[in-house]
């Protein structure tokens, strides 16, 4: 029973991180119909920016509330800019070309980031994992039994931050004019342009939002794992994408549900078998969903006009 509870806690913790990244995937897919393979790596960059900022601050400042906030904001801002640049330089010129071209480009960017960060030239950190400096002093907030079930403060904080960010996003997408513009663009970007919506700007901002969220996720993940390394984005990115597909790609709340589901399933499988199967779970889940219900839990089946 204790194990069960622990798995649930861990599953939700992992799931919320996946959710933050999945939201970026699903939003970008919604407006561009593109799987941004590089998204997970933007998360990685966010973690590194957070690492650099926290390191610069010194142990006293960074564990303070203000310090932590600065770390987050710095990281999210930098990644927003990165996302903007990627969209502007690599995806926008290819928007009218066949989708395969953009897909290959996305893989190229992902590769460049992953392996670029493995070099140790100039500001590039190199392949060795580095310890992420503490920005939250880990404290056990809840213990059941004799450490049978442990709930850490950073897990709760992580969950709270993730949920807060998701709620902000929900509000943005469904209650603001900008959100309406986003949804219009996701239906048909040419028609949206004809309706007077500044499509380019909407897409750019969507990218920036997604990247910002990914940065937040990156820092939360680094806190959880206590290390940063250049390939951390690869698997998280893939799993977040799986989560987005499970929920129905393009569907914002669906991405969150899918991510939590995936986090829990992953925890339980690893808990009751062994950790070697961790990564395979996500792919297995994906294949199952694509075979049985490719549009995802909440997705709509769209018919192609012939």
């Amino acid at each position: 029973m204790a194990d069960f509870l622990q798995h649930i806690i861990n599953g939700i913790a992992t799931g919320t991180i996946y959710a933050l990244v999945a939201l970026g995937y699903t939003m970008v897919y919604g407006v561009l119909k593109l799987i941004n393979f590089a998204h997970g790596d933007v998360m990685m960059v966010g973690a590194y920016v957070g690492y650099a900022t926290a390191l610069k601050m010194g142990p006293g400042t960074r564990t303070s509330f203000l310090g932590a906030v600065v770390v987050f904001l710095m990281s999210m801002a930098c990644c927003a800019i990165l996302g903007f640049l990627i969209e502007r330089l690599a995806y926008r010129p290819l928007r009218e070309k066949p989708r395969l071209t953009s897909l290959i480009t996305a893989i190229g960017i992902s590769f460049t980031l992953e392996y670029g960060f493995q070099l140790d030239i100039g500001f590039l950190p190199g392949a060795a994992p580095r310890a992420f400096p503490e920005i939250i002093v880990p404290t056990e907030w809840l213990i059941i039994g004799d450490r049978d079930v442990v709930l850490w403060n950073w897990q709760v904080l992580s969950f709270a931050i993730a949920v807060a960010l998701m709620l902000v996003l929900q509000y943005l997408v469904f209650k603001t004019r900008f959100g309406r513009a986003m949804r219009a663009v996701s239906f048909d970007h040419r028609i949206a342009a004809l309706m007077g919506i500044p499509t380019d700007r909407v897409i750019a901002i969507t990218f920036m939002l997604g990247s910002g969220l990914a940065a937040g996720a990156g820092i939360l993940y680094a806190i959880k794992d206590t290390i940063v390394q250049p390939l951390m984005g690869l698997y998280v990115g893939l799993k977040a994408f799986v989560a987005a597909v499970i929920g129905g790609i393009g569907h914002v709340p669906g991405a969150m549900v899918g991510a939590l589901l995936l986090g829990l399933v992953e925890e339980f499988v690893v808990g009751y078998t062994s950790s070697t199967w961790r990564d395979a779970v996500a792919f297995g889940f994906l294949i199952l969903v694509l075979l049985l219900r490719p549009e995802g839990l909440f997705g709509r089946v769209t018919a192609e006009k012939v």
Partner: protein
Amino acid sequence: MQSVQATAKAVGLPYGVRGILPILLAIPVIGLAQWLLGDLPFVVYIASIVGVNLILAVSLNIVNGMTGQFSIGHAGFMAVGAYTAGKFSLQSKDLVISHLPAAMSDQVLFLFALLIGGCTAALCGFIVGLPSLRLRGDYLAIVTLGFGEIIRVILQSTEAFGRALGLAGIPQWSSLFMVWIWAFITVLAARRIAGSSHGRSLWAIREDEVAAEAMGVDTTAYKVRAFVVSSFFAGIAGGLFAHFVPIINPGSFTFVKSIEVVVMVVAGGLGSTTGAIVASIFLTLLPEALRSAFTAISGNAEIAQRVDQIRMPIYGLLLVTLMLVRPQGLFGNRELWDVIPRWIPRRRRAA
């Protein structure tokens, strides 16, 4: 895409001969190369790596290029071929077929190992392809990536395959001749597919799937078949690889390897077998050449490591630049042999 028959017809060959002729011609030519270069281990090694990459690129081109699908898990099928063939060879390396000298017996066993590896990979291709090829392009990419990873995880957790340490001691039966004969066979197969009605159907699927279906092409079945053939040759490549490297482990068949092959196919031009050949040779030799050059110039081996490290992000940038500047790659969808036949005088077709 010229019909193969067009050239053969021009030269006036009977039907029965046309099928087997190219291989008959290739054997002595490659045999000559083997005789001249076979004693230089460095050359053999480089040539083998080039050959393996060539087979991978040309076979992936059948699916990604000719059929217009997007598979990025090719390394998984290579792994299946490598491990299956390797396992077979490990079990049978002490066997000797009666009436044959030892060396020849080994080569026969080697051929068996390769075919077993190839067929197992083809079977995996069938299992993977059948459900996945119904999916839209972007999803197929993720699924093939996923299968590649699942295969790797399975290999990593199975005792019989040596887990993370892999298989060692596989008899090193490979030779320049074997690798290049198979490279030739792969290119021949790709060319014959392209010039046949099957190849045309694949291209039709690439151009317009809906129209192809409306014209009676069972698109899913065709895609699966292309996938199976492509996986077969990936398995062969893996099998060959296993027999000229000292150890194989899951690390040799990662997502990175799949992407390397994708880069070769895309850079050469999606759909062009010639492009895949040229790109695979170039992109395999270039880092080797750079590595040797830098080591020679600077005198220390560290530079070689650097080259390897820089190679990766450069591949990434190469893909991006290629898509922005010349998405059709080097050759687009043209072949060298589409151009050459015009140089051969032909009988004029009856009006």
